[in-house]
């Protein structure tokens, strides 16, 4: 009995470590984008986001090892947990990708998009937090996790509005350098894409809840 509990807590701890690293990376990225908005972008902080992705990768490997070590685990749960890991890893990868993009971004943000960039950035952080929370809830509480997925959907809708507001402002800047316009719009689009991806993952988690006999 004790052995079984140990195995379970080992698995849960591995999951927690992985989720923490993913969340840390997205929190740092959120800070970096805020720094970009405030014109004080710190490249070391961006480097930390990249390191977080590497740490998340290590935590992921450890989690997968523990997951597949348990020969008595139910195959469908192992597969579903594995898919969840894979999807969360994409979140972490996307954070790293944007961090690398910001590192080489040569411009400042346009002043008139700053407030909407802040909005979409906050929505990004909230979405990832909600997603990680939802993943944690999947272990103990399907009902709350299910409701959380609708909250993530609402966040995506708000983010979409912010995105087009920003793009609408950027695309009117005909006198600005086309490269600046292009790269700035890319940042906005990338942030929104990360939110969309998080929403897709929450949809997947919702489909898991629905497919189980306990729905």
């Amino acid at each position, binding site marked *: 009995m004790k052995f079984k509990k140990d195995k379970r807590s080992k698995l849960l701890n591995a999951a927690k470590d992985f989720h923490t690293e993913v969340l840390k990376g997205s929190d740092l990225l959120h800070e970096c984008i805020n720094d970009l908005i405030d014109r004080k972008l710190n490249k070391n902080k961006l480097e930390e986001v990249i390191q977080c992705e590497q740490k998340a990768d290590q935590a992921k490997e450890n989690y997968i090892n523990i997951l597949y070590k348990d020969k008595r685990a139910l*195959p469908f749960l192992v597969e579903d947990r594995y898919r969840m890991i894979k999807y969360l890893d994409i979140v972490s990868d996307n954070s790293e990708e944007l961090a690398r993009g910001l590192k080489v971004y040569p411009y400042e943000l346009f002043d008139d998009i700053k407030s909407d960039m802040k909005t979409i950035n906050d929505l990004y952080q909230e979405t990832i937090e909600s997603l990680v929370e939802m993943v944690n809830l999947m272990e*103990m509480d*399907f009902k709350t996790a299910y409701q959380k997925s609708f909250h993530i959907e609402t966040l995506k809708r708000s983010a979409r509005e912010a995105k087009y507001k920003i793009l609408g402002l950027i695309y009117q800047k005909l006198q600005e350098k086309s490269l600046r316009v292009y790269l700035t719009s890319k940042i906005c689009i990338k942030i929104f894409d990360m939110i969309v991806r998080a929403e897709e993952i929450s949809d997947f988690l919702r489909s898991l809840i629905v*497919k189980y006999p306990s729905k």
Partner: protein
Amino acid sequence: MALSGILIVFLVIVIIIAFGIGGNDETFAGIYGSRILNMKQIMILATIFAIAGALLLGEAVSKTVGKGILVNLDDAIVITILISTSIWLILSSALQLPISTTHATIGAVIGLGITLNASLDWFKIIELSIWWILSPIIGYIVSFLFFKLMHAYKVKHLNGFQSLEKNEKAFTYIVLIVICITAFSRAGNDCSNAVGIVVGIGDFQINLLLLITGLSLAGGLLVLGRGVIKSVGRITELYPSTAFTAQIPIAVILFVGTALGIPLSGSHMLVASLVGLSKANHTPIKKGLWKIVLIWFLTFPMAGLLAFLLYFPINAAI
């Protein structure tokens, strides 16, 4: 023909019959569908229980096939019925489709009865046909209601992976134990169908005969049975708890039905119960169900036709 020659011929027939029956055994479909065990593990378990069931339970039973339908049975008739049934079982198993051994046997009996212009107990045939139609209906309704009941009182209250895992693991053991018992008793029963024709002929070592039958059942399972198990196990998405819902009440009803002398079809009930389960659980049914239903309808005439074609050569040989 010398007695030893006859014994060899009968032994070959026993092997064919046991192979055919083993090939169409879908007992482990729930275990495969819910992925409690993989196919390799299932084959090992199925082989063990086929041989054990044949050796330990087979001796007690020697069954006269066709009893109560055809009057004045002789060896040629019994062998024709069993071979026709086996051929149809092997053909349907090769197509990965589960059929009812009983209905194939009855089809062969009727076909032979018509061929020989023998007196058939039509009342009995109608009674059997009614049960043939009722079996899937019972399977559907029972599994539908049982799922709803289980869902309302147990499964619905599961919340999260951890409680789901705990619950499903508990069902894993229950399903595994019950299905192994079913496989064991089914092997004993199936063995009697095959061995029945040689009991009393010559000086057979009964244990050796039962071992050969058990091995032939296992051979059928290994060669053809895996396809049938796969096709039944994939009718709908299964978890250990839903496999329990689909298979256990059916096993209980079959047991009670057999005790009461009601000729229910286990295969029909199981397939229908999986359909009932998918309806109750709102999970999709995999494609190809129509093939199973079609082969059910073809079983009667095809087994009858085979019996018609085989009787005269068999009669001449014996």
